[in-house]
């Protein structure tokens, strides 16, 4: 079945220059493998389309049941250069949590 990522995870996003980092955290650590399988760097990049100009890199933090995504070229130049309202990427975690993922009932 399809579920929104927000059903099993929360998160926070921010900036480092023109790179946005998006942290996605499983509410329950038993769902961490589901995050690892479903929330790939490729899917994150596709989800935001033209908003992310560069590549997306993923890091795993199994100790926190969390993934950290670095989205390069995601902030319109970043810092003071950016012309975007969300120049710090503060809303991007909420945007990613709206993504639909596949999950079996047994996994939830």
């Amino acid at each position: 079945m399809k579920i929104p990522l927000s059903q099993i995870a929360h998160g926070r996003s921010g900036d480092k220059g023109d790179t946005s980092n998006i942290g996605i955290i499983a509410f329950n650590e038993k769902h961490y493998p589901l995050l690892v399988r479903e929330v790939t760097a490729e899917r994150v990049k596709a989800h935001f389309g033209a908003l992310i100009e560069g590549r997306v890199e993923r890091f795993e933090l199994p100790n926190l049941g969390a993934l950290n995504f670095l989205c390069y070229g995601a902030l319109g130049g970043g810092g003071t250069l950016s012309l975007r309202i969300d120049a710090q990427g503060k809303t991007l975690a909420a945007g990613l949590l709206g993504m639909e993922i596949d999950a079996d009932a047994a996994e939830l």
Partner: protein
Amino acid sequence: MIRIANGQGFWGDWLEAPVRLVEQGPIDYLVLDYLAEVTMSIVQKQKQADPSLGYARDFPPLIGRIAARMKERRVRVVANAGGVNPVACAREVKRLAPELKVAVVLGDDVYDRIDDFLGRGLDLKNLDTAEPLTVIRPHITSANAYIGAFPLAEALATGADVVIAGRSTDTALALAPMVHEFGWRPDQFHLLAAGTIAGHIVECGAQCTGGNCIADWKTIPDFANIGYPIIEAEPDGSFVITKHHGTGGRVSQDTVKEQLLYELGDPHNYITPDCMADFTTVRLSDDGPNRVLVSGIKGRPATPFLKISISYLHGYKAQGTIVYSWPDALEKAQAADAIVRARLNDLGLSFEEIYSEYFGANACHGIAAPANPQPAEVMLRVGVRGKDKRAVDRFTRELIPLVLNGPPTGTGYGDGRPSVREVVAYWPALIPRQEIQTHVEVVE
């Protein structure tokens, strides 16, 4: 055990937070983080206009307000409020709170040393783009090395009630009291990593106590009286994150995890002047209501470099808005945007970038936003950025006419023409550690 509280996550954070931290319960140290990357260029400009300025001006009045309580409760303050003029900041603190002993940490400001560095073959190339600094040399407005916890700990060793630094790292502010109290050495990198991660958790103030928290945010109690974070630090590197009893907000594993992930790069290699911290070694456990125990942290030795934060005048930008109501609000806003672009083109004006957003439709998330076929209103925001100030200024005259000569229902232009703003940009670079020698002065 020592209690280290953070009462300010940036210059502009809640003025009442540090006052409440000293009033509402026991703490030993109050740390205050005032500096963002572009703040240094703002204070540099203020100092050029008036040599007695160039620091976080909120800070001295705050110390004046809490000085009596600090003395009574033996609370000491560590802050990077000094900007590019820590001595002037300290003198103003002494004027408002003469009973306090104030020490400053100097040596981070390298604005006057840039040509010396370049002349000796240190190219200070941009960490992100690898361009050499010579590209922007004439436009530099400030340059500061990020300094770590040891110079701050040296200042605490003078017995100062208030330690004022310039561009110290955010994490060093909370680590310094641990180094001072527990006698941690530069080669004890697991302990330094633990203190660094403690500093990371609290450096954004209430962002670890329920502020900006996505997890169950509607159930977080009493935001109006949110408690700012307190580290209960132990000599073995373990610590508890908590807040004062009776305050609002929440400390839970969820709130702490969100802040651990905030502005994180490679979690294995969190680089500071003090150590490299490994976020994949953090262990969290519950320790009672609004208490999270953090342990298990490992680190590695610091690198031979320090990061330098250089700011420079890049160019100019302006952004303006018009609101369109339904029906067809988005279509009207898109039509208006096309007209503006056509007119700028007809004028022969060129920019580095023209960027348009549609508030109420998809400004924050682009195609990731949910579809909303008939929004009640949409705000068009058009921005331009470029090197030519006259072109940017001309752009500011092109939005308001649309109210009369563009699509229907344009409104919300009451603030008049947008203003042209300088773009001061940020240039990160590395420098060999031995180039930066800090020293401590007690200001009388």
